[in-house]
């Protein structure tokens, strides 16, 4: 397979209110690779993800992105509407007619909650709903910020397995996680 570089970062630095969050980070990511961004709380993992996504700008350094704008992203916030039903949220995500929807709703045990208002679901169930955005994506790049938090062991395994399958399809993954997972990844340690 012809692996192309989709992200190349050179000497990325980020300062907030005069405090250095990270300094001179360099890394690259190719098609079909996973990058695990690790580090202590507050080291700037989420900020780095936001820089990669183009939401935040780095203070110094150069970042070249060669991926399409269509990215499957799940951050700390689930981007779901808790006053709507699960079905309405699927409509908002544009997933209501996706051919794989039924399969994943069954795998995640969400099928029986389709007409339930999301506020009445547990935190884990809400996270599973948000993960559908990842499971049913057609993007070449998947970006996840602490995706395993709030998930039961079974769902964590399903997610790890799914991500490994996506890597086999030559998709790229960037993620942060404090929970150990079995995804073959490059590690970028932020100090």
């Amino acid at each position, binding site marked *: 397979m012809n692996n192309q570089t989709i992200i190349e970062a050179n000497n990325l630095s980020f300062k907030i209110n005069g405090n250095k969050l990270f300094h001179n980070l360099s890394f690259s990511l190719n098609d079909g690779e996973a990058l695990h961004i690790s580090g202590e709380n507050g080291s700037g993992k989420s900020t780095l993800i936001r820089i990669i996504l183009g939401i935040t700008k780095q203070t110094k350094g150069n970042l070249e992105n060669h991926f399409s704008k269509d990215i499957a*992203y799940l*951050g*700390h*916030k689930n*981007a779901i*509407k*808790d006053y709507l039903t699960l079905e*309405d949220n699927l409509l908002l995500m544009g997933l209501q007619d996706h051919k794989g929807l039924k399969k994943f709703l069954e795998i995640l045990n969400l099928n029986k909650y389709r007409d339930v208002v999301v506020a009445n679901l547990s935190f884990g169930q809400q996270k599973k709903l948000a993960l559908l955005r990842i499971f049913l994506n057609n993007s070449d790049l998947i970006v996840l910020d602490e995706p395993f938090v709030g998930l039961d062991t079974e769902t964590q395994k399903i997610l790890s397995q799914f991500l490994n399958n996506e890597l086999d399809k030559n998709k790229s993954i960037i993620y942060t996680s404090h929970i150990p997972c079995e995804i073959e990844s490059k590690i970028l340690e932020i100090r």
Partner: protein
Amino acid sequence: MKLLKLEFLKLKKKSRSWLGPILVFWLIMIAYPLTVELLPEKLEVGFFSVLWIATLISMMLAAEDIFLEDFNDGSLEQTMIKTTSFASLISIKVFIYWLLIGIPISLLSFIFSFGTTTNFVLSLMIFPLSIISSYIFLNLFVLGNALSLNKGSVLGALVTIPLALPVLIVLGKSIVAIQFNINYSGFIFLLLGCLSIIIVAVPLVVSYIIKAHLE
């Protein structure tokens, strides 16, 4: 069109957000006659001032949480990384809010105006003024709320109200023109001119402000 439908679905299900401003408008207009003598000529004296101020307050309330929820739940981040134009999303959002809040308030303006003045023609002339001004006010308050997105809506309203004062002056002059049977279409065109600038400028400016907040 899809975005329009989705924004409509979101607002429709948040009944507090669209019903609240309409009810506030209704309550102010109901309360007004209770504070003055119930003679028709006395009622008419301050009626239109109260009407425009009630419209202003209702649109201020309507814009209160227009972006806050999407900002807090991460939806704005999702939009920012997609190909969808941020400014067009904002235009659609404002349009839906105006459709579900501004239009009913304009209809109520007509009804209350007719109930107070018993002058059908005058009340009919109030309707386009109310429709245009509610859209202008909403856009202005949206700008204010974007500026103070995570600092509370009061600050945004304080920033915006001075911008709404010229519109209130034009609305006042329009009523005088209608009452003295002078052609008031010039005022309508003036308001439409303001609206056409605001309708393009506000979404663009707001999109930059929100991007800065997300950064």
